[in-house]
């Protein structure tokens, strides 16, 4: 089998990348390989609204947002295969399996990695206790409720205040369950402010910061969990234990980009994001292999996924058309104090489409602080922000003409007031 571009994954990133690549060059043969039995990825189970404010200037549900992309896919005649699991990736071939073709290899000119992310499971959190039914990651519970139409339980405690956990606090409440508490290990939430207000505060669900679950009870089904306050080193404080009776514990403790295929292919991974290191074109350390969406870095908003993925798709199309990469000076993008990572981590000015957007996350909560951008040590941007938290992705936009001076290094840091 052959294709010009193979897109691994048909969620929001894969759809946007495929459409943008086809629009860039309508002669290209683009193939999406999707492991689930429908396109749209995790959007299918996100039936709440709030998607598309940036892309379409309106509030859509997840399935509506995905449908907009899927109809474009059809108009452009882009091929896709469902129930197809990719087993192996290199810069010029992708091996996959499905029930029709068996194990097959697609030879291709470029690959876009769009595998998304998975949730951190209980096992990876070292939560003590028994292992009864009733412990779910928030996303699994979301699938059971919104896709399968079944309730995971009636009385719920949520550990972790990631966005899916917050959304599920509201969803379970609307379905008649009692959400007794959301415990967050850190002294701040990992979710968006708007979700804390709309999903917890509006329903009087307590958010217990600096709290964790220290025991799970119940042999067959969860009967209670024990929570405790934690100190600055995230260790439970003796004497603060409280037992909460419940039949369900939901976990929303972080998302892990699914880079097993990328690692096996030899793609360089940034330990801060657990995603590939990419340049301005969203190209990884392997020429012709691009990455976007949550496999690259975990996003809060799907609109940014779509935007970045469009860029990755166009880059892949140009890579195939030009039979390789442009050359030119490379600017390194570095993360300084308070900044955990940046995407991209290098920039070739010759390949820029216009202004350069650099996205990043902070390593902690900063109030009344400044986002600083320095070109070779010289301040370029010094912007005040009332609050910066790890739960909300930040960005700086650098004008294309400013980059014509081509510094050798761009540094982004947070300066406390």
């Amino acid at each position, binding site marked *: 089998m052959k294709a010009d571009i193979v897109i691994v994954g048909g969620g929001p990133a894969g759809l946007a990348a495929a459409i943008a690549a086809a629009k860039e060059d309508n002669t290209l043969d683009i193939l999406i390989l999707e*492991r689930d039995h429908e396109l749209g990825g995790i959007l299918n189970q996100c039936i709440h609204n709030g998607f598309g404010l940036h892309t379409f200037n309106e509030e859509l549900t997840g399935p509506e947002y995905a449908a907009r992309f899927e109809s474009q896919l059809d108009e452009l005649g882009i091929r896709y295969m469902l*129930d197809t*699991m990719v*087993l192996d990736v290199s810069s010029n071939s992708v091996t996959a*399996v*499905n*029930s*029709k*073709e*068996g*194990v097959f290899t697609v030879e291709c000119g470029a690959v876009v990695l769009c595998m998304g992310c*998975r*949730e951190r*499971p*209980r*096992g*990876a959190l*070292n939560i*003590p*206790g*028994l*292992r*009864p*039914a*009733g412990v779910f*990651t928030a*996303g*699994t519970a979301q*699938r*059971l*409720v919104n*896709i*399968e*139409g*079944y*309730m*995971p*339980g*009636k009385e719920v405690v949520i550990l972790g205040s990631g966005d899916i956990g917050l959304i599920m606090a509201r969803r379970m409440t609307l*379905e*008649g369950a009692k959400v007794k508490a959301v415990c967050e290990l850190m002294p701040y939430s990992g979710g968006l402010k708007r979700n804390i207000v709309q999903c917890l505060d509006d329903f009087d669900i307590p958010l217990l910061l600096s709290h964790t679950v*220290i*025991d*799970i009870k119940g*042999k*067959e*089904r969860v009967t209670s969990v024990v929570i405790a306050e934690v100190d600055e080193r995230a260790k439970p404080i003796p004497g603060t234990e409280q037992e909460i009776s419940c*039949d369900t514990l939901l976990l929303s403790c972080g998302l892990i980009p699914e880079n*097993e295929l990328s*690692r096996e292919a030899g793609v360089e991974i940034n330990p801060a994001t657990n995603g590939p290191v990419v340049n301005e074109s969203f190209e990884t350390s392997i020429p012709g292999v691009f990455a976007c969406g949550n496999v690259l870095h975990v996003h809060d908003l799907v609109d940014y996924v779509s935007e970045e993925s469009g860029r990755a798709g166009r880059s892949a199309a140009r890579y195939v058309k030009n039979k390789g990469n442009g050359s030119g000076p490379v600017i390194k993008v570095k993360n300084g104090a308070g900044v955990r990572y940046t995407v991209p981590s290098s920039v070739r000015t010759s390949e820029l489409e216009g202004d350069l957007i650099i996205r990043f996350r902070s390593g902690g909560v900063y109030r009344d602080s400044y986002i600083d951008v320095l070109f070779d040590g010289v301040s370029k941007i010094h912007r005040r922000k009332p609050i910066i938290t790890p739960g909300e992705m930040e960005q700086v936009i650098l004008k294309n003409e400013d980059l014509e001076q081509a510094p050798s290094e761009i540094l982004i840091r947070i300066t406390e007031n």
Partner: protein
Amino acid sequence: MDNSFDVIIIGAGVTGCAAARELSRYNCSVLVIEKDEDICCGTSKANSGIVHAGYDAKPGTLKAKMNIRGNEMMTSLCEDLDIPFKRIGSLVVCTDEANREGIDELYERGITNGVPGLKILGKDGVKKIEPNISDDVVCALYAPTAGVICPFRLNIAMGECAEQNGVIFKFDTKVNDIRRTGDLWTVVTDKDTYSARAVLNAAGCHADELHNLVSDRKYHITARRGDYMLLDRSLDGFVEHIIFPQPTKMGKGILVTPTVHGNTLVGPTAIDTDDKDEAPVTSEGLSKVQEGAVKNVKGLPLKQVITGFSGLRAHEDGGEFILEEAEGCPGFFDCVGIESPGLTACPAIGEYMASLISAKLGLTKKDTWNGICRDVIKPFELPAEDRAALISEHPEYGRIICRCETITEGEIIDSIRRPLGAKSLDGVKRRTRAGMGRCQGGFCSPRVMEILSRETGLPLDSITKSGGDSQIVIGRTKDEG
């Protein structure tokens, strides 16, 4: 149905199933009674998965004899049962010059027990075969015949083999009483009452309670908990042997080993508990596991943990396997105190108990007996051509359900439909590994639930994690009515 049998085996763990398989060679009727919903739900489900070489046990003990014999039997047994077994070898690591004598003692004991191929390696020798070993290593005892096995697959395959040779299994059935009635034993359960000419007590942590119902000589079992951490398969190759510290009187200590499937396993602790059924992981336990692991292996990335679990060992006060006809109880046979090296020893224990019982009952061997089983077909373990043929004939073998372990719908269906098939998520997991990977069933559990529901005809809200009242969902959402 006729409720009388020649032999009733109580417990479908490795001991009970090994004995069932061996007894199925004889002309006799055998019933296995298990209190849980499936094979391999007690002590057998949570252990290190190690086939020990046999240098630990005191010479002359049943533990030593059964260990050596079980280890010898394992290669051909695993071939017959179509399950993986890797003789990767073990190292008992000495990190303190003052304890060097302990290694010499273990070596001598191993030689007396008849362990083949034992060697004491110096620091350089150890480093050469295991580069990530602690720099403090002084020497180590190397035993090439030690290996790793999947305890679930061993246990289930022995049960399936027994079943294909006529053994009957009753699950979710708890024995409440055992009495002598004339020449027979009456076994009273929470469901039915059965009678048998002989009873084999293979009840793990509860074996003392069953024994004490019938015999004046009393035994006492303590449940000794062990916590473990299982690390991601991406660390495959970080260690290549089973790495033990020097043993203490509480056990063999915290080991680091590759599993037969390429994960890295770390543990166990040894903590005596009162509860014989529940084994919660504790944070103290996990801390001890972590401390123990890094003593012998440097730079072990414990952050790559994918799950923690704990199991219970059935430790009898005497510290020895009790494998005999109970005193004053003709036809009542005990397998009591089956702790480490119980997994290694189980084929030998099965063989030994079957010989005792067949002699007692005067059993004759069957003319035909089929000791060969096939495991769930694993398309990704087949040569490419065979796999292509399988998928074209059975497309469900091309549909991946568990992404992390690359497990297909075909394998899950097979695990449910086969004799003594899976009835729960955990049953599917133990037979296929679906849900055992790095996402721990986050993606695949709803799909496995659907397949279980379709195959069993039960509604989704009746599907359990592990039988009993462990339903995963409680009912429809309100707008679904």
